[in-house]
């Protein structure tokens, strides 16, 4: 109802705007308004009234999005990018996205309607891709609005680093606690320019060098596209290690059929195998946690193996090493990696920062004391720079865990809801949708987890991996599935099984809004088209 409320798309530009990915409710209103506007002309006191957009009234009714923080509720800060990476997975993306940036007015409105205690805020009215935040000229102002409302939450921004000039970095220090994920890709300016078309590649590399001096922790990112020479990859890993990265992530190359024009660009398995071997080899040589993404297909699932230790962290101080396996936390035996993470986080919180662990290293079992009691002034960059109340933790729901780097993993608790869904639906046969990355682990859980085996005794569970018909290429991530992929999968499953399964369970994380897929198709479409009942199982997104 206010001037600062978000505004929408004019009917005059319907042709262009109809393609945009609006929230389903907003899209519905827009669609109906357009249909009605084709039928009738509106009036005020007998005179025709023209309109070219609309704004929502009573915004409090639209504050139904569950977000951990106002910053999450802001959504993408910019739908633009200033780099032109050779491997950009957005190239050719046929899905409609809103090519806009977050405005100050919308951010203020979002701040006004965000309820911190409930973690509820305004829905995303239009989806835009989460691209380069620093292309938004109002970025600092936006973050200041957020910081004004929430002094403690760590701001995490992913950036290609091209705009990290000294004034910007200085401005960011005023917004601490803040951390960056910097997709440098190569520490060699010439190489970086060739890959990313960043004309200021040298300055970008220089900015990474200076991160420590600004006291802003960062995670280093490298997309290991096959073009990237192996020695360059190794050099960039070492560059990050030498310049205080909190962690290093090497993305294994993925592409969609829209990017490749339907061509197969390389044999994924040997390329990924080689890169994974390089990463494992380098991880043993450096002190910074290093992992490949996706990690799971080559890494070890479930087992609480520590894949790295954040430099300057309590875990590093206590001598914990990569490869150690967590056996107990605070005296409690650990059952899985996610269990270890949960226990560690809870125990650190409950004890005020002191925690006993037992870890197994080879044949020996060691007792370790983590002391995470850090005062504001303590400078443990990159784990906890001076002036930070608590450690940073990129993408970690459970915080920094005293510096233990445990790769993200499937959570058995999410699988545990499956029998309940089946019971509620009276289903005897259930298709559990997975991805090629996780299917083996999921199947293993149903075979080996005593609780799951017991709970699914009367149930036929089929773990299915839908084909990535929509994205194609070598896309393997489950959260990129569209309804049409699931429909195809159920058709194949029915044919193979010789009967129609009673229920299909889909991880909720495939839907940006618990309602539709990325293309805006409601998941009820799957049930309508296949006749198989469909439920979303609430899941935590796994950073594979």
């Amino acid at each position, binding site marked *: *109802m206010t001037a600062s409320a978000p*505004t929408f798309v004019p009917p005059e530009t319907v042709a262009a705007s109809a393609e945009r990915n609006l929230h389903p409710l907003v899209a519905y*209103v827009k669609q*109906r*308004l357009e249909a*009605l506007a*084709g*039928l*009738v*002309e*509106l*009036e*005020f*006191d*007998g005179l*025709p*009234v*023209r*309109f*070219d*957009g*609309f*704004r*929502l*009234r*009573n915004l409090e009714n639209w504050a139904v999005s569950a977000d951990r923080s106002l910053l999450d509720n802001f959504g993408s800060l910019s739908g633009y990018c200033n780099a032109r990476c050779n491997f950009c997975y957005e190239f050719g993306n046929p899905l409609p996205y809103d090519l806009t940036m977050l405005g100050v007015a919308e951010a203020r409105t979002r701040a006004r309607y965000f309820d911190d205690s409930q973690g509820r805020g305004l829905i995303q009215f239009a989806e835009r891709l989460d691209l380069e935040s620093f292309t938004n000229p109002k970025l600092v102002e936006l973050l200041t609005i957020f910081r004004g409302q929430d002094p403690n939450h760590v701001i995490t921004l992913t950036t290609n680093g091209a705009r990290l000039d000294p004034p910007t970095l200085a401005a960011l220090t005023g917004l601490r606690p803040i951390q960056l994920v910097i997709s440098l890709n190569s520490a060699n300016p010439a190489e970086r320019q060739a890959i990313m078309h960043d004309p200021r590649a040298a300055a970008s590399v220089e900015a990474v060098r200076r991160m420590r001096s600004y006291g802003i922790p960062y995670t280093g990112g490298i997309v290991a596209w096959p073009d990237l020479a192996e020695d360059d990859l190794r050099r960039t890993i070492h560059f990050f290690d030498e310049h205080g990265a909190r962690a290093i992530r090497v993305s294994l190359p993925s592409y969609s059929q829209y990017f490749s024009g339907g061509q197969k660009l390389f044999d994924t398995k040997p390329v990924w195998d080689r890169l994974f071997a390089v990463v494992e080899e380098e991880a043993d040589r450096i002190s910074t946690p290093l992992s490949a993404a996706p990690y799971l297909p080559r890494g070890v699932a479930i087992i609480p193996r520590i894949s790295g230790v954040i430099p300057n962290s309590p875990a590093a101080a206590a001598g914990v090493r990569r490869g150690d396996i967590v056996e107990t936390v605070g005296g409690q035996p650990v059952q899985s990696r996610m269990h270890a993470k949960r226990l560690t986080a809870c125990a650190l919180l409950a004890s005020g920062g002191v925690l006993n662990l037992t870890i197994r290293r080879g044949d020996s079992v060691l007792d370790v004391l983590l002391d995470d009691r850090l005062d504001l002034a303590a400078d443990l960059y990159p784990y906890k720079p001076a002036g930070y109340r608590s450690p940073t933790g990129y993408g970690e729901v459970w915080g920094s865990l005293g510096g233990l780097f445990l790769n993200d993993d499937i959570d058995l608790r999410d699988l545990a809801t499956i029998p309940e869904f089946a019971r509620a639906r009276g289903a005897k046969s259930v298709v559990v949708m997975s991805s090629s990355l996780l299917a083996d682990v999921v199947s293993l859980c149903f075979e080996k987890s005593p609780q799951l085996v017991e709970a699914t005794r009367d149930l036929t569970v089929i773990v299915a991996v839908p084909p990535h018909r929509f994205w194609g290429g070598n896309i393997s991530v489950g959260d990129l599935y569209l309804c049409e992929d699931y429909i195809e999968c159920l058709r194949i499953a029915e044919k193979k099984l010789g009967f129609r399964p009673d229920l299909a369970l889909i991880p909720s994380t495939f839907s940006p809004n618990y309602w539709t897929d990325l293309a805006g198709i409601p998941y009820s479409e799957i049930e309508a088209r296949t006749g198989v009942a469909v439920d979303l199982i609430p899941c935590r997104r796994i950073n594979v």
Partner: protein
Amino acid sequence: LIRFRDPDSFAVIEPRIRHVQRELERILALVDLEMDGRPVAVNGFRLRELEPWRSYTTNTAMNALTPISGVCNSKCVFCFEEGIPLPREQSLMPVAEARTRLKYYSPEDGRCLFPSNRPHMETFIHPQAVEIIEMARAREPEKLFWITSNGSHFEERTVARLAKLKPIIFKLSLNVVDETLNRELMKTGRRTPIALEAPKLLRKYEVPFMGSIVAWPTLPLTAIEDTVRYLESLEAYAVRIRLPLSHRWLHDQSDADFYARWQEVSELARRLRPQCRVPLFVEPPIYWVNAIVPEVDGVVLHSPAWRAGVKAGDVIRAIDGARVQTRMESEGLLDQAHIDGRPVDLLVERDGELHGFHLEHLTDGEDRYPYNSRYFYRGENYGIFHVEDFRLRYIDEMFQRIEHYGARNVLLFSSKIVAPIFEALVNGIPAFAERLAGVNLYIETVEENTAGGNYDVMDSRFVDDYARIIRARLDQGLPLDLILIPDAFGSPWGMDMGGRSCAEIEQETGIPVERIDWLLVYGREV
């Protein structure tokens, strides 16, 4: 050019308008509209493309205009519109709307825009009424226009102007010629004398008119007789006496016995008819005449039938040698002959004897006021009045529906006046009796009409009245597989006056509901 401020008043005639309104309201409860980033206010809408909204058919440009006035300067104590708790658009039709309506009317096939949502009130209260009728005349130069008025705006200059728009016939709601009684009954106020003089001016300018009298219980029978005589003396085209209807929302609730009143007024009319030189009939006509029998219900002064000596009450036995059995059959043959422009030989039965008559087809100049040979009006050609009667095709079509559904247990609604006629026909005509075999046909009459008063004489126009009875019958265990309701709603969508749909009954009971063509006691005007 058609604007909507109170779409609820379209509930009956075009519910899609209301649907558009409701959806707009729902959306505007969620959002504010904007232009160039600024909010814009909205409180009405108009249709864009009118072509797809030509969903009605009619017979003349005048009727294509549909009511141009939703207000009246009289306040008749019996006014049907008085006090009814339904949305009503009480406004005058803008000239632009009239122009649009005429533009979208096709004289060739009768297609026109859905009607105005205004109730049919006093046309000439509209300052541009004559101008609008002139526009209609220009759109369709030849056809006969029937126009209803209380006559209170018929000053001489107006009548002179209207006389140029012939062929026109007025339905003049005079009601009673006695000025004191007229003022009490119609409350027309200072224009009462103009209304009382209107028949004289219409006679002077040779504009034919049918005088209408609502025989409200407060009118003495002598006053009704005087009024008939007054209209007769001014060579009225016809005189219609309407038996009074009362509904629960009328401001003055009469405690008169309306059924007794109907009888005494009918007797008066029966007594007067043979004495009058004017076709005199009572509404509802089917209450008054012998149903089906091909009687002459009246003869227009100076018409071919009048000249030949045909009289009201004569029973037509043959037309041009062809045997005639029903009133509607006779009407059809006479209408066709008139269209063909030829003379007709009539064989009639009067007091048990057969008489032959030759009816001339008059040409221009041979005819004489109030008869005009160029007029065509169904059921009144050659000056022979036939009132609307039950048609045998209603029964045939009813059976077609029953057979379409293969229904065995059928509930048929009918007004209490029409039900006995239907029963006599369906049992009396062997072809129908045969089709009835194996079908349990239950006939129901709505005894408790939502409108109250004596509306129970006719088919209800309220969905609830039917739903109530159907529920009761189903509760009693009556097995039903088809429900037939006379299409009295006045809505091609089966919407009743309160905006409810006939389909709700089907939805509630799961039993198909069909609206059927049926003889409506009072026609649709009431």
